[in-house]
Structures are given as structure tokens and as C-alpha cells.
């Protein structure tokens, strides 16, 4: 379940390998750029990850690392222009979705792969009731009648533990609280029983107490339905509880992939190490918070060599010359660092 696909990130513009592997959803050497008036930003530079039924992959990274753009490319909701896919594959059941007809892709959305968004208030249509937006899935996609669709929508609201689901059916999104809205969003995306759920920072806009409830709900639904889940987040705390594997992204690449325990115990990339170190700790109360110095690179002008080298405390001359490929460093983990072995083997 968790062997790591190795990609050659340094090869520019190379297409995906296209070999079938029996995986549910795999992203293979994906490359996306944004063509803007000011220049071309290379947002995704060879991302490879996969998710299987019943497992949760967390994609971790700062804003601008490309985690959301990857998700949008999988869903086929990338704004084009400015976004253009320049290479790679997104395979669902072994079939490259980037080569499918628009109609084929549409049918996968919602039924094969569904997505929940960060801000449910703006992601739900303000002028339709929550019930309508859920029932719409049953009516349009399943061809059910009005009454039956309504019944199923209320069942969905019940499943995401919205109290008084029947009464809430006719409420508009702005009449829901933040947490309830995100629950409604989840109900809507799970309506057609998708095989993969992509959750793009599902708890970022919520109170901390509500965050935990929503994550618990997501984890529970994922287990019940044996879905593959891609959880996009920048919150290490969220990840630890629910993820099976973690892929860390930086400047449009995967820099480290490992299972949760390994990643926290012994990060194999200095960026991951920096992220873990910058979690505020209770036993260091009153001291200055630790951060990773510097800023993520300008994607229109990514530094040569390892993109992390300007901020890396371990940087050596080789880091400024050669892009480190994502290589296996253990039984089930990979890192894109020239010194991954040293990091893993240190005491």
C-alpha cells in the first residue's frame, strides 16, 4: 500500500510513465504553470502521489506550495487561463483523466472523486437552500424525483450529524454556522458516494473546537465508506490524527513522503524538520517561536538546484547546482534531499 513512486523531478516536461499499477488515484509527474502578464510561474514541477481505497494521504505545505493547484487539476477545475497543465498524468483507476473527454471527466466528478473546499460560505451557492444543493446531486446526477431526492438529502444531512436535518433542509447557507456549513458541504460532496474525497483545508476557516469535530467526522466517514482521502492542509496537528501517509510539498514538488510516525519521529528533509520544529511547544512557553527563515521562492524564478537551498540550514554547494530527485530512503519513505540518508540515520 505504501511503496513510494519515484519520480525524476529534474527532467523538464517529461510526460507520465503511463504504466498501469492498479491504484485508485495517482498523480504522476504532474506539471502545471500559470501564464500571467508578468511571466510564467511554474506552480507544479513534477508532483507524484497516489491514494488507495481506505487510506488517507495528507498533503502538507505552505500557501503557494502547489497543494491546492494539484487538487484542482485532479478535479479539472483549474482556471485556464492562467493555469495550464504542461506534463504528467492524473490516473483514476489507471485511466489518464487529462486525456478524457470533458463529458467523461464530468461524470467522474462527484461520483468518482469529490471535493470539499476551505470556505464553505463562499463555496455554497448563497441563493439556493442547503437542501436544494444536496438534493440537486440526486436529481441531476441520479435522476431521482423531487420527493425521493429530498428524502436522500435529509439522510445525508443526518449522516453528517446536523441536528434537526429535516428542519434545516430549507435553510440557506448564511443561516448556518461555520461548522454546520462545512458539514453541509461534506454531505453534498458525499451524496454520490465517491471513491476519493479531496478535502482542501476543510477546517482552516473554523474555530479550533469545531475543527476537531469536523476532522473527526471526516475521519469517521472515510473509515465507514472506505474512501481514499486526500487531505490538504498546512496544519501539522490536524495531520497527525487522521493521516496514514504524508506528502510534504515545497515550491511545486514533493520533498518528502512518509507514513505519519516516521515523518514525525525522523524527518528526512530539512524543510519537514523546520516545519515540525516550528510547532509551538508548551514546555517552551515565553520563548521566541521558532520559524523557518526566509520566504518560499518566487515561482517565476525558482533558484537553481534544490528550491529549498536559500532557506536550508544544511545547504552545501551541491544543493545550489543539482536538483535532488525524490528517492527512496527507507522501506516506505522518500525524500528529495541530497543529505536524506544523513538525516534519517542521525541519532
Amino acid at each position, binding site marked *: 500500500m505504501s511503496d513510494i513512486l519515484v519520480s525524476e523531478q529534474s527532467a523538464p516536461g517529461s510526460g507520465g510513465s503511463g504504466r498501469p499499477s492498479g491504484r485508485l488515484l495517482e498523480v504522476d509527474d504532474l506539471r502545471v504553470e500559470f501564464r500571467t502578464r508578468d511571466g510564467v510561474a511554474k506552480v507544479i514541477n513534477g508532483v507524484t502521489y497516489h491514494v488507495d481505497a481506505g487510506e488517507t494521504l495528507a498533503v502538507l505545505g505552505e500557501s503557494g506550495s502547489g497543494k491546492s493547484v494539484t487538487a484542482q487539476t485532479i*478535479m*479539472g*477545475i483549474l*482556471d485556464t487561463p492562467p493555469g495550464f497543465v504542461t506534463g504528467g498524468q492524473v490516473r483514476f483507476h489507471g485511466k489518464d483523466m487529462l486525456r478524457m473527454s470533458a463529458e467523461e471527466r*464530468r*461524470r*467522474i*466528478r*462527484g*461520483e468518482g472523486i*469529490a*471535493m470539499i*473546499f476551505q*470556505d464553505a460560505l*463562499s*463555496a*455554497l*451557492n*448563497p*441563493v*439556493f*437552500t442547503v437542501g436544494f444543493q444536496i438534493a*440537486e*446531486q440526486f436529481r*441531476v*446526477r441520479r435522476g431521482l424525483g423531487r420527493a425521493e431526492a429530498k428524502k436522500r438529502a435529509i439522510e445525508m444531512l443526518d449522516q453528517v450529524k446536523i441536528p434537526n436535518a429535516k428542519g434545516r433542509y430549507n435553510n*440557506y447557507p*448564511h443561516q448556518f454556522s461555520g461548522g454546520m456549513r462545512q458539514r453541509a458541504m461534506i454531505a*453534498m*460532496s458525499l451524496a*454520490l458516494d465517491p471513491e476519493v474525497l479531496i478535502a482542501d483545508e476543510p477546517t482552516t476557516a473554523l474555530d479550533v473546537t469545531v475543527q476537531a469535530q469536523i476532522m473527526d467526522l471526516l475521519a469517521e466517514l472515510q473509515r465507514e465508506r472506505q474512501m481514499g482521502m486526500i487531505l490538504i492542509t498546512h496544519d501539522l496537528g490536524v495531520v497527525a490524527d487522521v493521516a496514514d501517509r504524508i506528502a510534504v510539498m515545497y515550491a511545486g514538488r514533493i520533498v518528502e513522503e512518509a507514513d505519519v510516525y516516521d515523518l514525525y519521529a525522523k524527518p528526512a528533509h530539512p524543510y519537514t524538520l523546520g516545519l515540525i520544529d516550528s510547532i509551538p511547544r508548551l514546555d517552551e512557553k515565553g520563548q521566541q517561536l521558532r520559524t523557518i527563515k526566509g520566504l518560499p521562492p518566487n515561482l517565476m524564478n525558482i533558484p537553481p538546484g534544490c528550491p529549498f537551498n536559500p532557506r536550508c540550514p544544511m545547504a552545501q554547494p551541491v544543493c545550489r547546482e543539482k536538483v535532488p530527485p525524490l528517492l527512496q530512503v527507507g522501506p516506505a519513505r522518500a525524500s528529495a534531499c541530497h543529505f536524506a540518508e544523513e538525516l534519517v540515520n542521525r541519532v
Partner: protein
Amino acid sequence: MGRYLLRRLLQLVPVFIGSTFLIYWLVWSVPGDPFAGKCGERRCPDQYVAYMTEKYHLDQNVFVQYGNYMKNLLQGDFGQTFSQRDIGDIIATAYPNTLKLALVALAIEAVIGLGAGILTGLRRNGFLDNLVLVSTLFLLALPVFVVGFVLQWLLGVQWGIVKPTVSSEMRFSELIVPGFVLGSASVAYIARVARTSIAENRRADYVRTAIAKGLPMRRVVGVHLLRNSLIPVVTLLGTDLGALMGGAIVTEGIFGINGIGREVYRAIVTKESATVVGIVVVLVVVYLLMNLLVDLLYAALDPRIRYE
């Protein structure tokens, strides 16, 4: 909702009184002798002038006059012209014609304006977008009477596709060209507002959600995008309907339509002040009610708007 409606209707009262009073005052204080030319070549006999002055309370101050007028009006009596015709009858004959023309113009605005706006808003900077931008600019720049005469001459006289004037039966097919002329400037406005609105909402999060749900593009645009983009367009259409129902002096004149615009024009020229006031009062009421209707439509289109 009920309380809001009541409050809005009550607000109409001072607006109605204020605007009708201003009109009354303005129209009757236009300089010139209202009886000049009423009796052919001669000066009107003193008896006639005295009778008419008495009848229209012309010797009293404007407040008393207005009060009398309103008293009659509230009983449904619009008064009479100097030639003893009931003004209520004039309005009742002319108004349906204006209404028909206004509805045809509105339908043309909605269909062409909204259609062009949606198509260009979805595909900005394409050929169609530029075509619509240029042609709407053209329509906006041309005065109505130019559009009217050119279309009448071209379609009615040169090519003979339509009859150059509208018959008294006011058939729907005859009203298409006048309706387009009347709505031409608004078509351009509506196309542009709809285009901007669609283009803005096209990138909205909820549209992305609708696509991610796997809904067919037809439904994403026709249901999710359109409903949100319609709000500014409906405002424009609603206020425009109020204006259209005020009659179209130029368009009605060009196509020989016996509508309210022509009547008010005729009344102004012949100094039939009572007719002018009567018609304008009706127009004020129609306009106010249309505005109220637009405000109520907002709530129907956007549930976030609640009237308390």
C-alpha cells in the same frame, strides 16, 4: 415581509404628494394665457374666461387648487380638458397602447440584452464579445430618433419587411420594430451589465463547486451562475419598465402609436394643463410601484436580503 411592505407603501404617500404637487404647481405656473387660441381667431369672451376660471379654480392659490384636484382625483375623477373631454377617458384609451409597447420593448431588452450579456460574459475577449461591445457602443451613442427613423425607412420603406407605422389594432408583429427602437439604448446597457455580472460570478467559488459536483455545464451556467448574476440585471429591467411605461414621446411619434407619450406631448403643446397633470400623476404612481416591485424582487432572487 408584511410589515416591510406596509412601511414601503406608507413611504409612497409623502413621495406621491410631494411629486404630484410639484408637477401641479409647475404645470399651472407655466407663463402664458391658458385660453389663448381656444376660441378660434377671436379673444375668448369674458363670460367664457370667467366660467373656466371658476371651474378650474384659477383665481385661487395653488394649494387650494391642488387640494381640490386631489380630492377629485382620489374619487377617480381626473377632471376634464378645456374642450370638456374626460381626461380619465384619454388615459384609459392611450395607456393600454403604451403598456403593450413597453412590454414588447422590455421583452426585447431581456432576451437580446441578457442573451448577449451571458454569451459575452462567458467568453470574454472573443470575436462575439468585441462585436457586442462595438454594437452596444453604437446603440448607446445614437439618439433614439435616429435609430427609429433609420429602421423605419430601411425596414418599412426600402425593404418593405414591416409596415412603416403601427395600425390602431396594435398587433404584436407590428410592435417588434418600435419595441426594439424604444429598448435599443437599454438593450445595450443590459448587455453590458449582464456581461460584467456574469464574468465576475464566473470565477466565484460556488460556480467552481457546481462544476466540482459534476453538474452539466448547462446547469452550472443556467442555474447556479445565472441566478446570482441576474440581481443587477433585474434592477435595471425593473427601473427601465417604470421608465418605459412613462410612454415614449419619440418612438410613439415616429411609428404613429396612440400612446400616453403622444397624449402628454399634445397636451403640453396645446397648454391642456389638466391633462398633463393627470397623465404625469399616473406615471408617478406607476414608477413608484415598479420601484417597489424591484425591491421585492431582490428578496426573491437573493435570500440574504431580508426586510425587517
